[in-house]
């Protein structure tokens, strides 16, 4: 079935680098990254090769795989209370969301990212950002608008819905 092979190769080429970054930063284990990435792609290819939102599907699958491994590597279930398991999983979820937000920021257009950096992280005013970036205030405002809209779209694509 050559279609399968083309589909897998395409998913890998298009989403492999992003997945690798996400998995690496979520697991901190360079040895497992390639294995997890390939497993994710194989599973997604089997389940939903034509999924509308492939990126979200890939990331959700990676999340499940990492959580499963995380659990498997942890203590025996009977020794961990449900609360502990829930806390551990939510910490992992948060770590993954962090990675995904960073990834989303990386996918923003440069001039949109600059505006997010100035206005949000550096707490500059629109006027200060205008000076810093050397563009009119109106441009800062419109870039801020599109930065916010695009960031939401990128995060939705990644399955970060909150």
């Amino acid at each position, binding site marked *: 079935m050559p279609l399968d092979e083309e589909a897998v*190769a395409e998913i890998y080429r298009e989403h492999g680098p992003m997945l690798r970054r996400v998995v690496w930063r979520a697991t901190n284990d360079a040895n497992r990254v390639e294995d997890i990435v390939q497993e994710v792609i*194989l599973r997604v290819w089997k389940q939903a090769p034509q999924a509308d939102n492939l990126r979200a599907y890939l990331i959700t699958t990676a999340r499940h795989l990492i959580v499963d491994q995380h659990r498997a590597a942890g*203590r*025996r279930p009977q020794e961990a209370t449900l609360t502990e398991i829930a806390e551990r999983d939510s910490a992992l979820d*948060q770590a993954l969301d962090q990675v995904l937000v960073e990834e989303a920021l990386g996918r923003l257009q440069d001039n949109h990212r600059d505006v997010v*950096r100035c206005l949000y992280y550096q707490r500059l005013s629109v006027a200060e950002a205008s000076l810093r970036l050397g563009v009119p*205030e109106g441009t800062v405002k*419109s870039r801020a608008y599109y930065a916010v809209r695009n960031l939401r779209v990128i995060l939705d694509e990644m399955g970060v819905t909150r």
Partner: protein
Amino acid sequence: MTTGPDDLHVLLGAYVLGGLSDDDHRAYSEHLRTCTQCQAELGQVSGLPRLLDLAGPEGGLHLVAPPPGAPIPLMKEPDDERVSTLLTEVGRRRRRRRTLASVLGAAAAVALFAGGAWLGPSILRATTPEPPTTHVTASAPGSAASVDVALVTRGWGTQLDLECSGLPTDSPLTLWVVDNYGKEYAAASWRAGGSGYTKLTGSTSVPTYEIKSVEVRTSMGKVVASART
């Protein structure tokens, strides 16, 4: 600088990110009370600050310059060799073999999982078409149950070809398939022969990719072998 009424929608961005002058902030807050378009858009993006905070005070790796000389091990583009490894695996998954590890009971099965018996990716390391086989032997003397299972993808679900040895002969045995949602399905049941060696084929409607683990249990529910796929 002040903004005319036609430009007010655009202030949403700086309203969410911060940085509006007092005048603009007041003007946009006023606008927001009556503009349903902005109300709807704000509803979609109002969660962003909390997410942006997750990336740390400086916004994470894409917003701060990387330290000089820091290795970026994962930025490499995927090479053709990796793609072909993947494609080899695609072919192989039409007939996958898994070896179930032998264990003495449920507790031991958990310990086995904890030991990292995550067989999926280890398959990917193989460079030859011959899938790797892992045999785990129980520590107790005299028990060497070993179950080799091949998961074959079928249009109707999954066929499971089993080769078992060293299984207990004093109880009927059942092959259970556990799917990704934790639901369990019996896929075969049999009684091991005198030698403990059995070859049989089970089946389940659960698709191969949804099978999370496979277990052989006695009629009392004792797990004699288990493996994750």
